[in-house]
């Protein structure tokens, strides 16, 4: 059972007292996105991070990805301090971030190209991952020809094909419609059961977090800190039916209660900007 990380188990991510600050472009004031952010992710664990918008949860993901440097504290991924992006990690982005001039196939290839890992087996591997995300038949399609859900399947395949040891997902299903989201959640569960790597999954959706995660880290208002880590001890596989379980509802209510006291303090417009900045 995947619960709280146990002693002796290898840690995928160890974040200690991480702080990140941005300078606002508008008035040059400092915006502290994260402060004293401490969090562990165990090998094989699915960790969801929820929090009010602008709380810095995406910033944390970017720090782990090596895209944003930490101003203070330390992040280790599989024991090694993060100094930048690396092939041991791959990110799935909220806005898909697909190269619009590349076909599905070529987009999936993109990460491997950047990592100089193109060889004779690449073609088969790409086909395999395209099949895994259910896009067989769409290899030659351009992103503009695909729905949001399908684009994110491409984003997922692009990340998975590099066989990362850690998968980072930044609100991956936030921009797709509710029905597609449900479907994608189910499929993601099946896919990660096969690929097996630990996942940090940023989301706004409490239901989504409870459905997918082994543990849920609830983050406070900006500057973001861990408010509570909620273990999700629901049996797997979880389905839509699981949501009817009283345990599910109790967990969901608990997470909602934690969030309710963390309403964004300032105007929504500002938090939106902050979220973009992060």
């Amino acid at each position, binding site marked *: 059972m995947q619960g709280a990380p146990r002693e002796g188990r290898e840690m995928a991510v160890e974040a200690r007292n991480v702080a990140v600050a941005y300078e606002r472009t508008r008035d040059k004031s400092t915006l502290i996105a994260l402060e004293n952010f401490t969090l562990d992710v165990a090998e094989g664990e699915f960790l969801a991070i929820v929090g009010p918008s602008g709380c810095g949860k995406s910033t944390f993901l970017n720090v782990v990805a090596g895209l944003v440097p930490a101003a203070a504290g330390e992040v280790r991924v599989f024991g090694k301090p993060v100094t930048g992006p690396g*092939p041991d990690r791959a990110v799935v982005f909220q*806005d898909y971030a697909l190269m619009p001039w590349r076909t599905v196939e070529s987009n999936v290839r993109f990460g491997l190209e950047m990592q100089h890992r193109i060889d004779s087996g690449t073609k088969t591997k790409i086909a395999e991952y395209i099949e*895994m995300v259910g896009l067989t038949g769409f290899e030659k399609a351009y992103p503009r020809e695909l729905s949001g859900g399908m684009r994110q399947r491409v984003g997922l395949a692009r990340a998975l094909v590099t066989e990362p040891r850690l998968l980072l997902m930044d609100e991956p299903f936030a921009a797709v419609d509710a029905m597609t989201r449900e479907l994608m959640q189910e499929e993601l569960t099946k896919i990660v059961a096969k690929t097996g790597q630990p996942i940090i999954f940023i989301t706004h959706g409490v239901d989504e977090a409870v459905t997918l995660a082994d543990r849920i880290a609830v983050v406070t208002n900006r500057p973001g800190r861990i408010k509570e880590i909620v273990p999700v001890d629901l049996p797997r596989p979880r389905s839509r039916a699981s949501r009817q379980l009283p345990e599910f509802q109790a967990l969901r209510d608990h997470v909602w209660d934690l969030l309710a006291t963390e309403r964004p303090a300032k105007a929504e417009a500002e938090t939106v900007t902050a979220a973009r900045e992060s």
Partner: protein
Amino acid sequence: MATATVTEPLLVKKGRPLWLRLVLRVLPGIVSFAAFIGLWQLLIVVFDPNPILFPGPGEVGEEFVTAWREGELWPAVSNSMRAMFIGLVISLVVGIPLGLAIGMSPTADLLTSPYLWAFFAMPRIALAPLMIVFFGFGMEVKIWLVVLSAVVPILLSCKEGVQTVDESLVNAARSFGAGRLEMFAKVITPYTLPFIASGVRNGISRGFVGLLVIELTVGSGGIGTEVMQSMRNFNTGRMFAFASTLIAIALVLISLSRRLEAYASRWREEVAV
């Protein structure tokens, strides 16, 4: 695996045979051209103007054939096109890399921007006298004016392209460990391609104007010079013949460059026209 969100991709349109599609494609042009000639002839018939002031399509056609037979048409066309082509190649070779470089460096942008925009806004005709002083009356001066006219729009377009590169694409590439070179080759350049193409289109039309300015004023050979000479001899038919050749060439160049642009932008959701 279930694919509830799947939409049918890339439906290939079948139907009309190739010959019919070709005919349908050129037919509107032919009809419109015929209507234009007809209207022209109608004006001649109705108003019966002095053919020296306003020749009919018949006279112009005749002059066209004469110019062709006497071997005057082709040398003029090739002369103009050579200047245009060489000037354009120089503009591309200079403008594209420079534009990309300036786009990537905020400092370079800050330093060069005012000059570039001033140059962009200034009518190139103003430079013609200076260029004549520098380069005389031959081929060289034409090439230079084409370059001066075309290089800045090309450069500015490239710069703009680089500066509008989608930040999320850059981040995605970084997350996979892209270095500077890969970022440039696999993100920035492909993203900028439609901008480069629109710069080329702009450069062609502006370069063409620059070329004509010299040809009309200096008499350095080429179609513009022939137009000017015909006018001096009051041979309006010949003048129209050369002017129409010019228009035809301009149309071909513009349509080619628009096609190039459409091709470069085919992946974009909204295609700039």
